[in-house]
């Protein structure tokens, strides 16, 4: 048995170092994604992707790629839609099988970002996203307390939100939606939650112009827009330690948790995936 009997992807440069600080090679990255595939693929199904490629590794310059690149194999599924931001048709990659995931890894797409809507109903989001990031000197601990406030607000409205680390300094809170609402409707809802929290919580800001002020946490509702993306759960990040954006239970999200402990070497040993049934728990916002 050889590699090419197991995948249609012609793998290249397997011993290239993609995370220099941690000495992680492309073979390691591919091994990670292959092992994460049973948890990652159900989430990625039919969700237009944005690749964040790092041909020179995590330390080098990366670039975002929405369009299926030249040489995309014909077994990679794609979805073409006009992107208003680009003013033209974009042929998005859909990662609907293991080989496509391996192919993405082989392109050094260390990070996999997805739209908040799935094809073909690409104009109606099926995820509501709160992207919560701290501005220094605030830290992950502060993010944790704000995340729980958002959790409380959503529960008060009868919703069951899910949370994951962003793989960097923040967290992503999502509510899986019954599709049908417009992006602007979902965005207004998220903005309303942010405004309500900002009224009572000093360091929280709900408006974009204040989002970079030191010592604040912005509850970013603007990601709930056509063409915007979220890094996928179980995606690697291009950080020195090869951190992972990992789904966590709400009771795991405590002060003192260091998001760097969730990385390429550790997360696969987590036996549960709090997000595994996320698309069987679609909810309605009012």
């Amino acid at each position: 048995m050889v590699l090419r009997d197991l995948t249609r992807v012609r793998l290249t440069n397997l011993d290239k170092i993609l995370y220099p600080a941690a000495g992680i090679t492309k073979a390691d990255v591919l091994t990670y994604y292959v092992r994460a595939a049973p948890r990652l693929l159900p989430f990625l199904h039919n969700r237009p992707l944005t690749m964040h490629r790092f041909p020179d590794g995590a330390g080098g310059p990366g670039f975002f790629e929405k369009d299926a690149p030249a040489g995309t194999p014909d077994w990679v599924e794609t979805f073409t839609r006009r992107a208003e931001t680009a003013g033209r048709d974009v042929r998005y990659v859909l990662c609907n099988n293991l080989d496509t995931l391996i192919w993405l890894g082989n392109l050094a797409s260390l990070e996999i970002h997805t739209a908040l809507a799935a094809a073909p109903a690409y104009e109606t989001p099926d995820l509501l996203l709160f992207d919560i990031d701290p501005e220094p000197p605030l830290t992950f601990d502060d993010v944790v307390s704000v995340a729980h406030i958002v959790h409380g607000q959503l529960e008060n409205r009868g919703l069951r939100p899910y949370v994951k680390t962003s793989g960097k300094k923040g967290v992503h809170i999502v509510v899986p939606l019954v599709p049908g609402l417009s992006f602007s409707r979902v965005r207004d809802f998220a903005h309303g939650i942010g405004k309500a929290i900002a009224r009572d919580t000093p360091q929280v800001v709900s408006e974009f112009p204040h989002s970079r002020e030191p010592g604040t946490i912005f509850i970013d509702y603007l990601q709930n827009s056509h063409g915007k993306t979220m890094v996928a759960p179980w995606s690697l990040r291009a950080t020195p330690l090869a951190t992972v954006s990992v789904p966590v239970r709400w009771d795991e999200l405590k002060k003192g948790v260091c998001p760097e402990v969730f990385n390429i070497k550790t997360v696969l040993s987590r036996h549960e995936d709090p997000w595994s049934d996320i698309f069987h728990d679609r909810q309605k916002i009012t």
Partner: protein
Amino acid sequence: MTGRKSPESPPPAKQASHGKRSPVTKPASMVKTEHLPAGGEEHGAQPGRAFWSGSITIGLVNVPVRLHTMVRDRSFAFRLLHRDDGQPLKYDRVCSRDGKVVPWSETVKGYEIRKGEFLVFEPDELKAILPESDRKIRIDKFVYYLSLDPVYFDSSFILVPDRSEEAYGLLLAALQDLGRAAAGTITLRTKEYPAIVHVYDGALVLTTLRHADEVIPPHAFSILPELPVPKAAELALAKKIVTDLSGDFSINDYPDRYREAVLALVHKKLAGENIVYEEPHPGQAKELMQALQETIATLAKK
């Protein structure tokens, strides 16, 4: 799958005489061919990314532009393989004294002044004399395009307006009406080039030029200035032949026959012969293979 004898077959490779087949061959029926162009038929050129942006500068006037590749090298590349196991060869920098591989960090540049004698240059010393790239195509003057000698033409690039459609269009129209090209300089990466900006098929094109000392003048050959003067009758006949064979030039009359022949050979080989494949090192791929086997099994259960 054994080599069929046909007039097109290459001479039998040495591996055949070892009495064993290369471990990395694969029946052609399993070979994927979608990345290969069909014999001769190929897609049109796609515009690539801009690799330089700056301005055409004429005195105080700037026309912001982006530079795109215009010329592609389509020559056919083979890789050199180890005949015994079909693995691609790689190149190493080897010290000529002890034959040992030298890492990049231990290298330095030398300029050979006499055979075996070098002046050593540290990176900083060479960096200091690099021309500054100021992102400008500096135009000194305008010249009749047809007065330029193509032997100096080096490489051509398409100039695309960078939110400067009006100024770009104006320059294009002026050059076109006057039959002129703009002459000046551009710094690309680490080298300054003489260059012209000229009109080509509705676009401005930048063509870098070779420096004067890069082109050998024909009068270096002493036989040329001493050619005999042709006789009138012979000249008249020669001119008649030339006139009779005159026509319009089309580059499409001259396909790349070698490339077509190699591609045809590739397709022929794919249809009937073993193809040598690159195989990752076993150690490198071991964990990945195990992960693949386990994941494929897990996904199959779902």
